[in-house]
Each structure stands twice: as structure tokens, then as C-alpha cells.
């Protein structure tokens, strides 16, 4: 019991050290803490820490120090001390100089009742998502298994990973390792840092807990961004609170919300936190004309680029469409504004961050996706049916019907809004238009990425605009001193809207809840993995099934003999995909082990252990003399090919 309490305490302290401390001291050291409200500081500290840890661990990995507990903790402490020292020096300097009146700092003064409402919504959000997580906390998800393998590689070797896979060639043998572009190092470094410092096993709840924390922060990020976007509106707090209502407790579980966290969609999860923060920083920098904040925005953008290629790609389009929206809304002042932008860009802070970023990319560590193969797969005419864009119904369903309905109204109101602020309006329009086109008509933008993945990014801007529309409608019906509706009808309208939205959001939650945990089945897989790891060696080759085994992607965390070890029979439809022909060995060896091709595959790959679900796949082996059933549990069996 004491061990458990101790290990949990160490884990939570490590989470604070890795995910909060560096970012906080960065803001302090650059003296930007006065530019933000407390809540903005809190969320920005978290997001910045993720980026900082990535860069710190990459530097350690490239240095003779290696990636160890001492080097990571030492690096964080050293960085924090430097920032604190700089802060004190400049603080002392400022105290001895004649004081210059500080510019009016924007701070959201939320009234007491609003604060109570916001806190209630946050607690309700955490409560609903925790109900879902109680059955999803056990590490079983496929994506999380793949990511945690690389995290464990970093933790065990103390080195930066080489993202490589091994595939079966046409002559049935295994090829030499080839690079994988789909894994980006920022998805693994923060988890590796936490695992190394706290000694927590990656095959535990900590990855899901960390992702849950990141996800909660992204909800807060949307809240603070909404406050910034509607800073000039007298209903700023109402819109932000309504946004929190629409993104927090409602539609709380379906992708890209809690399900992305439990499903281990790490890059997307972190991207959903960093994108709103980056928009917040760009917005502030441009409105307040502060190059330091612009530099901060660029720094976080680099952090995003090192974390998730899809999120970076999406953000690039958001930025592009924001510029277009700005040009359309402000044609008369465009040239003048552009000169102002250049002034901001050509400043020591911005050029310093840009230079550091370029040096990092070209000389220290280049993200794996920055090669022509990866770029070719993401850019171009959509190559598969799943990449040709969603239908309108699918799009509506992704956004949430009630949110979608209000957002449609909100976009119209937004186009004609005059007092929001030119940058605020441009960012909102650019954000929603970019993602709408990328989701519905990706071919217009030469985007060749699964459309449902892109569409998941629409949730946040749709939520903000829907909240804006909702508050605009309600406040328009009850303007100052005038009631366009009888107060009773106004109240009824409010409750009708609330019911429509809440029903839609809560129904979505109910659909997304799991019926039962797959923990028991996954546990059997892990026991079998321990068994086979102890009783096999690098000369043996294991083939496992992905279709009917729970937690199978985690088997490689037990064997630790390579990302592609064990071999895997994937989803059956992938073997029939004509747009992406693949090897058939992994299918033949399990499905038809007596076929001529299967025998060639067994000989070529050296496969001698098979892990399958005995309820589905044992009959084709039990008739064969050369296969021994050496392990038997309810939902997993192991066969050994004796000759």
C-alpha cells in the first residue's frame, strides 16, 4: 500500500516537473507573465513545457550526456534557474530605472456567478470524462501501444529512437529496416521523460492519465482563446462560458475528445492543445503589436511541428486562410498592416527564434515526416475513398448536430460583425473555412489525408462559433431596456435551446461510452506475451493476430525486439486494398497455414510462434502435426511450429 502511494506521489510530482515547470519559468524568464491572465499563464505554461521538454530531450540525446533521469531533471532545473536568474536581473534593473507606466494588461474579470458557473462546468467535464476513463484507463489501445513502444525504447536505451520497420518482401523474406515517417518524436519524448524520472512502467495507466491531463488542458485552452477572440464583445464571458459548456460536458467523449486520449492518438491530442494556444499568441501579438509574443507563437509552432505532422499541416492551412480572410475583410488597410507585420517579424526576438528553429531542424534533428515520401503521401489528389472528403451528414455528425446548427448561424453573423476586432474576425473565419474545405473538399487543396481525421479538428472552431451564435441570439432577444419577447417566452426559448443542445451532446456521450472494459482480455494477452518473451529469443519469429486479440499492439513492449516484431496479421480489408498492395504472408500463415504460399512464408520469415484467439483461429492449426499448442487461455492461444 505504501509503495503504491509513494509511486503515485512520485508520478504526480513528475507530471508537474515535466509538464508545468519549464513552461512557467520560460514565461517568467522572458518577462511575459504580465501579458497574460492567470488562467492563460497556467495553460500556456503547460503547453510550452511540452515543447520545451521535446527540445531539451533532443539536445540531451544528441549530447554525450544521454537521456537519463539525472540529465533530464538537471536540464529542467538548469533551464529554470537560468530563467529565474534572468527574471531577477531584469526585475532589479526595472526597479532601479524610472518606471514606465505598464500598458493596460488584458485580464478577464469574470464576475463571481460566472466563476462559479465555469468551475461547475469544469468539474462536470472532468466527472463525465472520468466515467468514460474508468473503463478505458487500462492500456489496451492499438495506437497507444505503438507509441509506447518508442517511448520504452527511449527510456530503456537512453537514446533518441530510430523509427524503422521491417516488412516482408516478395520473396517471402524479411527486408532490411526502412524508415517510418508516421512517428514524430514529440509524441514520445514527454512520456519518456515522465517514465524515466518516475520509473513508471509504460504498460500502466500513466500514459492515459497524461493524455487525459493534456486533453483537459485543451478544453481550458479553448476557453481562454474564446475569451481572447471576443475580448471586444460585452458578452465576452458569456460566450466563453457557453463555449466551455459546448466543449466540456457535452460531446465529451467521442473523437476528438476523451476517445482520442484513451485511444492513444497522442499527436492529435497534443495538437488540439497547441493549436488554440498558438492562435491565442498570434492574435495577441498582432493586436498588441508585440514581437516577443510573436516569437513565443513561433516557438510553440516549432513545438507543434516536432509533435504532430497532421496538426502542423492543419495549422498551416488555418494560417493561410486567416490571411486570406483578413485581406478580404480589410482590403483598404492591408498594405499598411503588412508593413506593420514585417516590423514585428524583423525583430531580434522573432529572428532569434526563427534562426534557432532552422538550426534545430537542419542541424540537430529533422522531424521524420520532412522527407519527400511522407510529403507525397499527404499532398496530391486523394488516393482512396476515405480521403475524398466527408459527406455533409458525416460532417454534421462530427461537429455535433446542435453545435453545427448554431455554428451555421454563427458564421453568417460573424461575416457581418463589425466590432469584434479585425484579427479576431479573420482568425475565426480563417479557422472554420480552412477546416470545412479540408474536410468536405480536400481535392480543392490537394490534401490526401483521411478525411475523418481532418474533420475532427472542426470541433473546436464550430464550438466557439456556435457559442457566439447562441449568446448573440439570446442577447438580441433581450437587448438593454427592451424585451423583444415576453420574459416567459424568452425563458422558454432559452430552455428549448438548452434542451436541444444538451440532449444532442449527452446522447453523443451515451453512444460513445464503452459497454465493457477489454481489460481482462488484454491482460491475458500480456500474460501470454511475458510467457513467450521468456521462452523465445531473437532467432525465433512470432506472428500475432490483430483482428481478434485485445491489446496485441502492446506485445512488442514485452519482446522489445523491434517495432515490427512480432509480425502481425492486420485487418482483413487491408489485404484487399488495391490502392495499397501489401504482403499476404501474415494473412496466409494464420488463415491458411497449409497453403503453398503459407509454407513459403513460414520458411522465408522463420516464423515459429503463432499468437491467436483460440475461439476463432485454432481449428486450422489443431489438425496439423507440426503445430503444437503450447499455451492456452480463454482468449489467447500460442502455437509453436515444431518442424
Amino acid at each position: 500500500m505504501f509503495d503504491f502511494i509513494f509511486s503515485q506521489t512520485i508520478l504526480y510530482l513528475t507530471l508537474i516537473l515535466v509538464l508545468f515547470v519549464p513552461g512557467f519559468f520560460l514565461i517568467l524568464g522572458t518577462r511575459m507573465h504580465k501579458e497574460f491572465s492567470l488562467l492563460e499563464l497556467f495553460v500556456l505554461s503547460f503547453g510550452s513545457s511540452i515543447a520545451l521538454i521535446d527540445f531539451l530531450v533532443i539536445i540531451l540525446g544528441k549530447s554525450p550526456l544521454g537521456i537519463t533521469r539525472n540529465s533530464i531533471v538537471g536540464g529542467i532545473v538548469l533551464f529554470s534557474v537560468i530563467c529565474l536568474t534572468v527574471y531577477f536581473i531584469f526585475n532589479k534593473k526595472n526597479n532601479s530605472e524610472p518606471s514606465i507606466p505598464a500598458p493596460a494588461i488584458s485580464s478577464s474579470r469574470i464576475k463571481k456567478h460566472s466563476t462559479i458557473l465555469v468551475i461547475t462546468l469544469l468539474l462536470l467535464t472532468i466527472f463525465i470524462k472520468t466515467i468514460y476513463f474508468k473503463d478505458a484507463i487500462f492500456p489496451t489501445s492499438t495506437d497507444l501501444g505503438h507509441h509506447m513502444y518508442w517511448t520504452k525504447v527511449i527510456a530503456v536505451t537512453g537514446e533518441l529512437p530510430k523509427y524503422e520497420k521491417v516488412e516482408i518482401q516478395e520473396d517471402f523474406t524479411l527486408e532490411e529496416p526502412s524508415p517510418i515517417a508516421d512517428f514524430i518524436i514529440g509524441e514520445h519524448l514527454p512520456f519518456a521523460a515522465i517514465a524515466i524520472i518516475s520509473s513508471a512502467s509504460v504498460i500502466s495507466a500513466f500514459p492515459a492519465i497524461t493524455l487525459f491531463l493534456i486533453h483537459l488542458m485543451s478544453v481550458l485552452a479553448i476557453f481562454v482563446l474564446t475569451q481572447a477572440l471576443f475580448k471586444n464583445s460585452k458578452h465576452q464571458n458569456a460566450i466563453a462560458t457557453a463555449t466551455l459548456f459546448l466543449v466540456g460536458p457535452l460531446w465529451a467523449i467521442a473523437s476528438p475528445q476523451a476517445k482520442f486520449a484513451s485511444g492513444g492518438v497522442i499527436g492529435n491530442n497534443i495538437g488540439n492543445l497547441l493549436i488554440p494556444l498558438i492562435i491565442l499568441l498570434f492574435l495577441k501579438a498582432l493586436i498588441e503589436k508585440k514581437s516577443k509574443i510573436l516569437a513565443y507563437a513561433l516557438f510553440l509552432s516549432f513545438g507543434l511541428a516536432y509533435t504532430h505532422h497532421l496538426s502542423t499541416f492543419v495549422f498551416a492551412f488555418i494560417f493561410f486562410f486567416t490571411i486570406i480572410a483578413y485581406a478580404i475583410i480589410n482590403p483598404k488597410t492591408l498594405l499598411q498592416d503588412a508593413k506593420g507585420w514585417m516590423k514585428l517579424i524583423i525583430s531580434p526576438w522573432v529572428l532569434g527564434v526563427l534562426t534557432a528553429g532552422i538550426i534545430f531542424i537542419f542541424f540537430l534533428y529533422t522531424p521524420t515526416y520532412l522527407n519527400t515520401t511522407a510529403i507525397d503521401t499527404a499532398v496530391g489528389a486523394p488516393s482512396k475513398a476515405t480521403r475524398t472528403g466527408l459527406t455533409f451528414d458525416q460532417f454534421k455528425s462530427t461537429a455535433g448536430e446542435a453545435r453545427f446548427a448554431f455554428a451555421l448561424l454563427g458564421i453568417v453573423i460573424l461575416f457581418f460583425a463589425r466590432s469584434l476586432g479585425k484579427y479576431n474576425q479573420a482568425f475565426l473565419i480563417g479557422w472554420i473555412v480552412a477546416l470545412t474545405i479540408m474536410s468536405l473538399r480536400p481535392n480543392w487543396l490537394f490534401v490526401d489525408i483521411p478525411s475523418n481525421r481532418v474533420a475532427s479538428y472542426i470541433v473546436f472552431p464550430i464550438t466557439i462559433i456556435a457559442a457566439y451564435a447562441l449568446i448573440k441570439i439570446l442577447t438580441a432577444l433581450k437587448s438593454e431596456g427592451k424585451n423583444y419577447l415576453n420574459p416567459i417566452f424568452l425563458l422558454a426559448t432559452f430552455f428549448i435551446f438548452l434542451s436541444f443542445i444538451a440532449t444532442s451532446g449527452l446522447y453523443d456521450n451515451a453512444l460513445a461510452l464503452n459497454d465493457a472494459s477489454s481489460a481482462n482480455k488484454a491482460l491475458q494477452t500480456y500474460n501470454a506475451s511475458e510467457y513467450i518473451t521468456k521462452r523465445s529469443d531473437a532467432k525465433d519469429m512470432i506472428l500475432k493476430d490483430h483482428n481478434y486479440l485485445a491489446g496485441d499492439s502492446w506485445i512488442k513492449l514485452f519482446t522489445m525486439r523491434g517495432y515490427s516484431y512480432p509480425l502481425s496479421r492486420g485487418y482483413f480489408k487491408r489485404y484487399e486494398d488495391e490502392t495499397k498492395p501489401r504482403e499476404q504472408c501474415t494473412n496466409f500463415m494464420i488463415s491458411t497455414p497449409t497453403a503453398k504460399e503459407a509454407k513459403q512464408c513460414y520458411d522465408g520469415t522463420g516464423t515459429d510462434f503463432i499468437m491467436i484467439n483460440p475461439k476463432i483461429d485454432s481449428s486450422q492449426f489443431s489438425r496439423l502435426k507440426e503445430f503444437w499448442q503450447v499455451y492456452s487461455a480463454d482468449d489467447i492461444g500460442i502455437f509453436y511450429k515444431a518442424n
Partner: protein
Amino acid sequence: MIYFENPKDKSLNFTIENHSLSTNFHWEILADKDSVTQGNSVITNGAKKTIPVSSDGITNKKITVIITSDGNTKEIYKSL
């Protein structure tokens, strides 16, 4: 669950691991379809027991180990 201690050679020692509430396990060893030996073991939840079985003199037969507990049956086998 049940498994052979050594899956790759011809040894027949096997282990029963109990992750259920039942504690009584009956095991039987067949050579092809003939029963060679059988026994009972009491294994508490979370515990395991290894049962040594000699493979001396057994050739050209399929050796099957069948475990029964509370109506559930599992088997493992090797062809010697």
C-alpha cells in the same frame, strides 16, 4: 491458463496458473487418445503450480494435457 514450461523441446512439464475463483483443477494426460495419467490439484486464485511429466519412452504420439475446472476445459499438446 495452462502452458508447457518449455514450448520448443519435447519436455512435457506444464504449469497451471489460476486467475479465476475456482480452486479445484483436474488434469489428464493423453497419448493420442489413450489416457496415460491424471490427477487433481488445488490452486488458489493468483497462484500457479508446475506439474512434472516424464516424456521418456514416448515417441510418435500426440501428447495432450487436458485441464478441467468448474466445467471449463483447456488443453495443450505436443506431437512427439
